[in-house]
């Protein structure tokens, strides 16, 4: 009876079968889509608003759940003027003082005192380094302006950097008035600007604020781990926040995968690969933001001149998909692209396939053979055993990251076998997913 029910359920809900289940044996595989039955989480994300981190499945990414999590409202600042200005500053002419009591029945207020006759664009409360560029915020605060002022009688704008929101006309003099403003930051400083509707001398005029709260309502999301879906545990990680590629930009899911900034972003496996191989196949879906400069794509090779090391490296060069450092090196020699480079580099999304076959590397672009890389950098072909003794690097060449990739990556799948027989089918699967060609 039980078996019968199970069989019925399986008929209705067939087990998931991914590309890695159909074409088994991958050594490492990274994507934001689900590639295999064993895959659960595809990515671990850090949201910049509070540096929380969480693992997400492919469904979480595609359904928007991951983006929603990144955009969770986070209270990033709450003022405390009980002992000072709490980081608020102003320009030279007004002055700020904290811990001002008994204003409209409330204590611990921040006071701005005008020391000049004129109210200008520089008459403001300012908090530096409190916003993240490109993200949205809600700012709330309470304000009090006494009717005894000569000139200062209103607030003008709340500015998220230079992006200003008009708040004029909301104040009620001699009462605490609550403000609630939303905006998107184009700089890191928050300004609360004042204005005066009367002519006269503003010297000695005072304005009070309290209970300033800044809530971040969108955020950047960064990739801390791109999980290996091959089942081999070769997760690519980046534990340095400043070098993590982006997956959510200002609250919006990055189009085209994971965005490497071309400055210092990259992912790597914490442990070395220790395989010995005679052939290999690499699939990578990438989109360059620029066609100039050298861009490290995928690498399992220490730093050093050909003839001294074993490993694999794929680097693009200006206007060419394969440069002289697109090479595979083993016991007998090293194969690479010509010095002038081969293939055509562009800013479209491309599927590149490299198949290493001892005496040549077949380089495909969008399903068509683009180049045969058979320049001998040293030694002789066939290259022989390639003994891997380094970490896998994605988007950077090695620790110094002198040639970072600038663009997005959607998928990287690596086999330490010749997948010529399956290449077209695997490429068709990838193309069906990404609609590249």
């Amino acid at each position, binding site marked *: 009876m039980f078996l019968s029910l199970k069989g019925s359920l399986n008929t209705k809900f067939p087990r998931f079968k991914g590309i890695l289940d159909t074409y088994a044996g991958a050594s490492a595989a990274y994507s934001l889509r689900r590639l295999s039955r064993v895959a659960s989480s595809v990515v*671990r994300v850090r949201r910049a608003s509070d*540096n929380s*981190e969480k693992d997400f499945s492919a469904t979480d990414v595609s359904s928007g759940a991951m983006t929603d999590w990144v955009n969770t409202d986070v209270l990033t600042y709450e003022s405390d003027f009980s002992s000072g200005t709490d980081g608020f500053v102003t320009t030279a002419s007004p002055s700020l003082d904290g811990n001002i009591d008994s204003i409209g029945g409330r204590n611990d207020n921040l006071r701005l005192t005008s020391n000049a006759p004129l109210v200008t664009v520089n008459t403001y409360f300012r908090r530096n380094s409190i916003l993240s560029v490109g993200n949205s915020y809600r700012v709330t605060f309470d304000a009090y302006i006494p009717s005894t002022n000569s000139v200062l009688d209103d607030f003008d704008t709340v500015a998220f950097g230079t992006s200003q929101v008009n708040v004029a006309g909301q104040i009620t003099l001699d009462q605490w008035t609550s403000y609630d403003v939303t905006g998107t930051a184009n700089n890191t400083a928050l300004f609360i600007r004042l204005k005066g509707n009367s002519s006269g001398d503003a010297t000695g005029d005072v304005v009070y604020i309290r209970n300033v709260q800044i809530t971040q309502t969108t955020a950047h999301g960064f990739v801390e781990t791109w999980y290996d879906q091959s089942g081999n545990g070769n997760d690519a990680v980046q*534990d340095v*926040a*400043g070098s993590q590629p982006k997956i959510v930009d200002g609250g919006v899911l990055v189009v085209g995968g994971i965005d490497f900034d071309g400055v210092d972003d990259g992912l790597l496996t914490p442990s070395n690969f220790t395989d010995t191989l005679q052939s290999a196949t690499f699939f990578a879906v990438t989109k360059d933001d620029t066609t100039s400069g050298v861009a490290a794509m995928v690498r399992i090779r220490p730093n050093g*001149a050909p003839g001294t090391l074993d490993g694999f490296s794929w680097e693009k060069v200006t206007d060419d998909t394969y440069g002289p*450092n697109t090479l595979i090196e083993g016991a007998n020699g090293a194969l690479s692209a010509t010095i002038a480079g081969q293939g055509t580099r562009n800013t479209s999304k491309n599927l590149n396939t490299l198949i290493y076959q001892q005496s040549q590397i077949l380089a495909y672009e969008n399903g068509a053979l683009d180049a045969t890389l058979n320049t001998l950098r040293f030694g002789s072909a066939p290259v022989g055993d390639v003994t891997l003794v380094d970490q896998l690097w994605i988007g950077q*060449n090695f620790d*110094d990251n002198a040639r970072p990739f600038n663009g997005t990556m959607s998928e990287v799948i690596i086999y330490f076998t010749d997948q010529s027989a399956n290449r077209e089918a695997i490429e068709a699967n990838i193309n069906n997913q990404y609609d590249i060609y």
Partner: protein
Amino acid sequence: MYLIYTTEEAACERADEEGKAIGYTYWTEGKGTRWLTKPVPTADGKWALDVSEYELDDIEEASVEDTYLPVEVSEDI
């Protein structure tokens, strides 16, 4: 802006201190992001830490350098 350290350990200690102060999950959950920036070796055998976005004390503020001498890359080509 960089702080220059004579040993990698000292540079990592400062990076750790900043990572803890920020509250990265490596320090709160034992997994995930550890550092804001990471020390890199210099050509004169020291270690440079990018502290552009660090909270520095007065002594550190007085010792920051605008640049450092990077290690020459002996890369493939």
